[in-house]
């Protein structure tokens, strides 16, 4: 298993600003994933963060809007840039458990954009 800590747990932000979410894992992992969970919607994968290379973004998500850093094997950040109310969501950091599809999640960062 893996213990994942996310910061901040929640925040209220103004339109047009940016917020960086941090994800810390208690063990070294190859891949880290960032998900978005909008109200009443499924978890949507934003990108896969690989150490030492650029993140791989899913369709509909771009690096300019959601820049990701992965400086080492235990840490990653996701920035939500130039925020609008549509970005209000829960953002989740996740890592694989070594077996197919088994993921461990952080508690999420609830973002509200006014």
């Amino acid at each position, binding site marked *: 298993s893996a213990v994942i800590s996310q910061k901040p747990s929640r925040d209220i932000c103004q339109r047009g600003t940016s917020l960086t979410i941090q994800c810390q894992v208690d063990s070294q992992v190859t891949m880290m994933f960032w998900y978005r969970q909008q109200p009443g919607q499924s*978890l949507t*994968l934003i990108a896969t963060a690989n150490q030492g290379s650029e993140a791989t973004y899913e369709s509909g998500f771009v690096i300019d809007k959601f820049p990701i850093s992965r400086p080492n094997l235990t840490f990653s950040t996701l920035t939500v840039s130039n925020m609008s109310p549509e970005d209000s969501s829960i953002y989740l950091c996740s890592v694989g458990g070594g077996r*197919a*599809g*088994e*993921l461990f999640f952080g*508690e999420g960062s609830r973002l509200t954009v006014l």
Partner: protein
Amino acid sequence: AQSVSQHNHHVILSEAASLELGCNYSYGGTVNLFWYVQYPGQHLQLLLKYFSGDPLVKGIKGFEAEFIKSKFSFNLRKPSVQWSDTAEYFCAAEPSGGSYIPTFGRGTSLIVHP
């Protein structure tokens, strides 16, 4: 594109009632299937999984799920729910031998009244 559908978005039950949450996936090949649960104030965690073999899989806390290949379904069941089962339940699927990144359904909110 692969998708996962959960038919019940909100379910309200009394304690001791039986539970069945529907999940269908759209993918023609071999799949790995999962149910995740998120208890209030806690992070998402794996409830049970199916990779191959016996299509009836048992998870934690008395939950089970049945894989019916002909129906592309993986329904979650529990014969007698408890108040502590109140949570959000997510079905997920991924192609076997794939990228180890599952696709999630939109979740079912279960409320169990004591």
